[in-house]
């Protein structure tokens, strides 16, 4: 099976300003790759280069097996939801999709059929004949996703698809995203600054920072790579609280101990490095027991992508 | 001596024999048809003028020119408004031959008018032009515009467009 996206050393500069540099990665069909990065990291530029809106300064890439030297062919094979996509207010949702379907080569009857099907898929069938001016933000995003699918693409690029949506809207959009990959077998490149969203929906992650690839891999790999600290919450008897804090503060492998707000009787312990297994938690428990502290419960929190993200992007 | 006499006689003969030059306009005559035309204001009409060379030599370098004037005092006539091609440069006319020109005009004023064609030499020599007979043109007045009739258009067209624009807007909103 042809690799969906293959980028080798892709770079984009505007004069002396380097927007993206040495972008190298692959995406397989059916995979959802999350692209993370702070503002100005180069995420949107990267998408615009890969979708042929911008031409690369250096490097090469292929999308759906089509080399970057054939931009029109690439555009036929991809669907894109740009971050700042605007919509023609005086068109209805159905008109909008029919128009774009025809731009991708559908005949009139076929375009009509595709538009209706996609509107149903994204939950806009009842508002098909309403003007886009009357659509909410969430509806517009869904319309945008529908538009990205008019040509049944092999690769879909979604730039901040949940931006400005409430949690319910976000859930709905992310459901659509998962469906694109699983039901259509298309590769999805999902740009987002919402770490939880990427963590839950992406099989692999690419972190960009200042135009460079700061990290790439599965969530677990990236967390390990960043050596993000892990945390645990321990419930101790109230009379032992002060003693427990003192004992743990001096323990090896413990970076920080404090009482979290809103949880009386609990201590939050931050360990200094992530390791396989629960070794550090075991060590902390033994220290407490040896000190005669009554331990009532404990919770170990895995290192989060958000921790790795902050660690990698703040380090540069 | 004899040679001087011969040369002198030749010089006199040259001066006496009429030459075929632009100055031969006096041997030309002009006839027009018809000599009376009636039309209404704005009407287009035409007439012909036949220029004949009645002389013994070829007539060349002649210009035929058309003029229009009002036979009633007080009516301003600009001949350029009546015809766009009032001056015709004639081809040489052989002795005894003639050439016919058709003049097309439009009556831009109403009233009584005279039209004539004058033939004169193109070298501008001070000889009287030869003119043809005056054509009497009678142009009847005609009402060319009913001013009040424009009101339905001025009101109706914008109204129709305005209603259409409103209908389309309401339909799209619905």
């Amino acid at each position, binding site marked *: 099976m042809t690799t969906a996206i293959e980028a080798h050393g892709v770079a984009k500069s505007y004069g002396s300003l380097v927007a993206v540099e040495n972008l190298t990665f692959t995406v397989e069909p059916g995979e959802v790759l999350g692209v993370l990065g702070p503002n100005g990291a180069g995420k949107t530029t990267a998408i615009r280069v890969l979708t042929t809106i911008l031409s690369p300064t250096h490097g090469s890439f292929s999308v759906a097996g089509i080399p970057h030297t054939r931009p029109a062919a690439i555009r036929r094979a991809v669907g894109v939801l740009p971050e700042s996509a605007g919509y023609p207010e005086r068109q209805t949702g159905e008109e909008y999709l029919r128009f774009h379907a025809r731009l991708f080569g559908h005949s009139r009857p076929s375009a009509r059929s595709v538009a209706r099907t996609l509107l149903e898929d994204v939950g806009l069938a009842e508002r098909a004949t309403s003007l886009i001016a009357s659509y909410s933000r969430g509806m517009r995003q869904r319309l945008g996703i529908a538009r990205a699918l008019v040509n049944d693409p092999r690769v879909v690029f979604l730039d901040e698809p949940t931006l400005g949506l409430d949690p319910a809207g976000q859930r709905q959009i992310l459901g659509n995203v998962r469906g694109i990959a699983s039901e259509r077998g298309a590769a999805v490149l999902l740009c987002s600054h919402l770490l939880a969203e990427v963590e839950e929906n992406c099989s692999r992650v690419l972190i960009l920072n200042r135009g460079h690839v700061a990290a790439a891999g599965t969530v677990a790999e990236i967390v390990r790579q960043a050596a993000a600290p892990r945390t645990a919450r321990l419930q101790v008897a109230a009379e032992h609280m002060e003693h427990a804090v003192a004992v743990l503060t001096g323990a090896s492998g413990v970076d920080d101990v404090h009482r979290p707000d809103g949880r009386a009787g609990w201590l939050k312990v931050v360990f200094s490095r992530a390791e396989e297994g629960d070794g550090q938690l075991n060590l902390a428990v033994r220290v407490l027991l040896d000190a005669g502290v009554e331990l009532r419960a404990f919770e170990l929190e895995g290192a989060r992508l958000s921790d790795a993200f902050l660690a990698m992007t703040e380090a540069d | 001596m004899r040679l001087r006499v011969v040369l002198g006689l030749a010089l006199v003969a040259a001066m006496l024999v009429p030459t075929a030059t632009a100055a031969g306009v006096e041997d030309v005559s002009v006839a027009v048809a018809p000599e009376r035309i009636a039309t209404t204001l*704005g009407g287009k009409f035409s007439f012909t003028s036949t220029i004949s060379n009645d002389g013994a030599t070829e007539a060349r370098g002649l210009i035929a020119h058309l003029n229009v004037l009002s036979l009633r005092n007080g009516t301003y006539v600009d001949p350029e408004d009546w015809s766009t091609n009032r001056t015709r440069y004639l081809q040489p006319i052989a002795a005894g031959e003639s050439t016919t020109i058709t003049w097309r005009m439009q009556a831009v004023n109403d009233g009584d008018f005279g039209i004539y064609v004058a033939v004169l030499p193109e070298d501008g020599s001070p000889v009287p032009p030869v003119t043809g007979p005056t054509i009497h043109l009678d142009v009847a007045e005609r009402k060319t515009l009913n001013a009040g009739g424009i009101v339905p258009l001025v009101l109706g067209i914008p109204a129709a467009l305005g209603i259409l624009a409103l209908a*389309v807007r309401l339909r799209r909103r619905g």
Partner: protein
Amino acid sequence: MTELVETRDRARGERSAPGWLVVLGQELRDLWLGGRGLVLSFAFSLLVGIIAYLVATNTDLNFLEQRESTSLTLQVAVAIGGMLTLLVAADAVSGERERGTLETLLLTPVSRRELATGKLLASLSLWFAAFIITVPYVWFLGNGVGIVDEALVAGLAVGTLVAVFLASLGLLVSCFAGSNRVSLSLSLFVLLALVAPTQLPAGAQQAWAGDLLLRVNPLTAGERYVSKIVVSGHDWSEDLSWLLSPVIGAVVFALAAILVGGRYIRLRGGVSG
């Protein structure tokens, strides 16, 4: 996938239209069903109607003045109709940029030249609508003096050439302008500059420099040609030299708008992509 879409459609006997035609169709729908075209046409009809009314109700109007009135009405239609076309074309690309809808258009397989072609042709619809609105007035004013046919044919020919020139100019400006406001302002400024020579005193217009200025300017040259046909009653072929700049302007600028301007339809105006 689009190849598969097209293959399937062809098997059913359905044909997909060329990109420029799809763009043209949608632009026309947006312009006329969206209401903007009708509003502009309504405003145009008011203006032409007022002018026609004022000239028609002049009771001292003689035959020649009636011809001049017919010519004036046509010239107003050409100038204002051309201006409407210019304004729509000047919004064609820079407006899409500002509304955020350009990026999705650039993400389709339709080439930028096809985008430019479709938008250029759609903007010309304003001129044709303006002409159709003007026809009854020209008929009313010119019928009594027998000049309707010549006036309408001359007006349509010259007006179309001028409209193509102005629309192409507007589209070119729109491709390069950094913002829609700049595009519209610059286009209007150019139009005013084109109209300015008509305000020269008669003597200056007849001098060689004034005459040259009027001839090289497609707008003034076209209007002069219409005047010669309608007012002076000249034949078509008598003053063809006045048609030279409208024809050249229309052809050159249309090609420039599609071939050159099309290349510069980018996300950011005037910035190399």
